[in-house]
């Protein structure tokens, strides 16, 4: 088991190198000059050139990249071109918000969608099944941008229950996490339903039933665990994506998360900031995937035996 974890964590190194290499080169080769962005429109070409030299932007890309990685390994991710503040400081100021939003939204999505998917499968073709799947369809098809504004209009402006933006109070997280959770709820419910349907048609379920076990205990003890594997995969992937920032929801609700920071940094050609965010996301995604793999082991003993 530990060997497995160690192997997976070790595999993070080539992932980080690969991702940073690609991002660094794409950012550096794409048009748009960071020095020009800092100095603004009025700066003379000479001033821009001077700053480029000062920032080391005139060195060959490989040298720039190696210099960046050499410092990054020692924990120095550089200064943001835009704010001149340390990249780590800027990211860490926002990362807790991203985690908060991700976890709340996913918890909300799982709490609602899991029972929804299970009941829909167990009562296939019932009113409930139709309703929950239509609701899920509604969730998947709605642009989060529009749904977010709808929530603000209704719950902030009309009812005045929740603030429309910011992150200072506990109340502030409700609307963004509902907007985000609703979107993910839909796909989790649909996945749970289809995998549950597949499982309850298996022979061993019929056997359990014929032994005289009650339907609910067959579902709870025999079907559920097996049906959960695809759901966990979906949840895991979505958490990974969310850690990378729910940019649209963050923008609508002015939620100070990392996603928005990264998009702004890409627009401003703030290469150190983009690199910092990318390293964080790649690490986050890999760790979430590792947790998902470990969870498989807890649920399915056959997978667990493969680790050892």
């Amino acid at each position, binding site marked *: 088991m530990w060997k497995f974890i160690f192997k997976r964590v070790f595999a993070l190194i080539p992932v980080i190198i690969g991702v940073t290499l690609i991002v660094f080169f794409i950012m550096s080769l794409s048009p748009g000059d960071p020095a020009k962005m800092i100095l603004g429109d009025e700066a*003379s070409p000479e001033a821009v050139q001077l700053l480029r030299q000062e920032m080391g932007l005139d060195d060959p890309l490989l040298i720039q990249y190696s210099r960046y990685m050499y410092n990054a390994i020692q924990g120095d991710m550089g200064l943001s071109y835009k704010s001149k503040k340390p990249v780590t400081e800027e990211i860490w*100021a926002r990362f807790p918000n991203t985690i908060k939003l991700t976890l709340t939204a996913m918890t909300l999505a799982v709490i609602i969608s899991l029972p929804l998917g299970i009941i829909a499968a167990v009562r296939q073709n019932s009113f409930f099944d139709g309703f929950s799947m239509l609701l899920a369809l509604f969730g998947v098809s709605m642009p989060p941008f529009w749904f977010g504004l709808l929530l603000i209009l*209704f719950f902030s402006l*009309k009812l005045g229950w929740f603030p429309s933006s910011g992150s200072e109070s506990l109340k502030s997280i409700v609307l963004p996490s509902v907007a985000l959770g609703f979107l993910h709820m839909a796909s989790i419910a649909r996945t749970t339903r289809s995998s549950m349907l597949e499982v309850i048609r298996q022979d061993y379920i019929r056997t359990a039933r014929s032994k005289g076990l009650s339907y609910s205990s067959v579902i709870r003890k025999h079907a559920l665990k097996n049906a959960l594997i695809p759901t966990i995969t979906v949840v895991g992937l979505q958490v990974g994506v969310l850690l990378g920032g729910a940019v649209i929801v963050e923008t609508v609700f002015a939620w*100070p*998360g990392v996603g928005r920071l990264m998009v702004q940094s890409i627009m401003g050609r703030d290469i150190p900031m983009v690199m910092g965010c990318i390293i964080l996301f790649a690490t986050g995604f890999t760790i979430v995937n590792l947790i998902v793999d470990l969870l498989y082991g807890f649920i399915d003993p056959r997978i667990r035996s493969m680790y050892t």
Partner: protein
Amino acid sequence: MNHQGKRLAVLLFLLAFITGMLTGCGGAAATPAPQQEAPENTAAAVKPTAAEAPTESTPKKDTIVIANADEPPSLSPYDHNAIYADYMNQLTYNGLFRLDETSNPVPDLVDTYENLSDTEWLFKIHDGVKFHDGSTMTAEDVKASLDFAKTFPAIASYTASYSSVEVVDPLTVKVTTNGPSAGLLYDLAYHSNYIVPKALIDSGNNFNENPIGSGPYKYVKWTLGDKIEFVKFDDYFDKDSMPSITNVTWKFIPEGSSRSIGLEAGEIDLLVEVDTTDMARLKGNPDLVVLEHPGFTHNWLMLNNEAKPFDNPLVRKAISTALDRESIIEVALNGLASLTISQTPAGMLGESEVNAEGYNVEKAKQYMADSGVDPATVKLDIICSNETKRRAAEVIQANLAEIGITNVTTTSMDLATYLQVTGKGDYTGAIGGYRAFNMVAFLQNTFHSSAIGGSNKTRLNNPEVDALIEKAAATVDQEERAKILRQVTELLNEITPQAPIYQELYIRAYNKDLGGVAINSAGVLRINKLYWK
């Protein structure tokens, strides 16, 4: 049968759900309309809200929440050129001068001043001005700040007018300019020349993290990505401008609709940037006030004067007269901009519409014919760096087709790419704009040949224009300068380096209980003048 019935029930339920949600929102948006039509009802409808207001607003009487879209890159006044960062700078710092309501420089930290010669100015600052760290401002601080400002490339065009600063006595400095300079007082009012304590400069203070100045508000806390908080500075030197509201919370809400809803819901008291799509709704809300004022940001269809056939003035004139500016403003900005046909901004010293021409298709066709260029051979690609510009470019495409220029394409680019490509002159057309506080700075940065590669994007290189701009910059006498500036404007209108379209409006929307909100063409916002009624 039964199965079908269930399906129908589900469908009906869902329809009811969606309709319910949509009507809920429709109602919110539609509420102000009937109130507008029936004033008697408005009073009745507003009363209860007004009655509730005191209890609701009592706790916030000493706080104001302001919102705009972008977070400032820095709280230091020296290393940025962003208007939204200047809003914060105006809270914590003062300059020797500031711009008044008519955008003219008036003394701020300066008590009295004297023009010793064409190039020498004597400035005496107020006695006993306190910095937020408790120290008292002296001439040494002024000298150190202006010398320090000169080391920052981002603001170089605002520190170039003065060459040296000398301390005469503890409250007086002598500033020497690079030749006679008409722009010095404007430059001294710009955030790049705000005054900070010398001791902090010497100790290497990071003014982005520790913005210590002498301004009416002190910095309290910056929650990155969310808001910045300020509190009233009790020792503020200008007792007439002492802030009335104790706390200022400045929030950053990137999405325009979210900002407007925040204002309507009472979470925000003042918006300094309003989405044009929300204007009608906000104006219809009896609890809010909306102020608009033409700003100095001048926007054009830029044409690369070095690229064929745009090197031909008649082709540029044909394009400029072919533009139906009213339609462009309607489509791109929902009608919220002031139309302009002159090459220089209205409202500035030296503005003129002589030689400028508005929309006239017949005349445009005539110019095209006179130019000797076949319109079918003209290829124009318009670079657009945002959605507003793209919508404007689409109208321009239709306008130019009317005079036979049918080969007009649009290219979308992000701002960084746009700046690089247009700066290098690697383009034919683009929609762009420029904001300056005074005509001399506007002309120097937009049309002087020394700004080619920087912000002279049409790459106009005209010795006559250059000479006139330099002459205006060196003319300290205002009336004389105005005459020269008008001359440059009229010459530029004749040359038509680019096709002017509109001047942006500065818009403020705020709670009707807030008093003292003023607006000027330079976008200056004096928060210390605001008060709760």
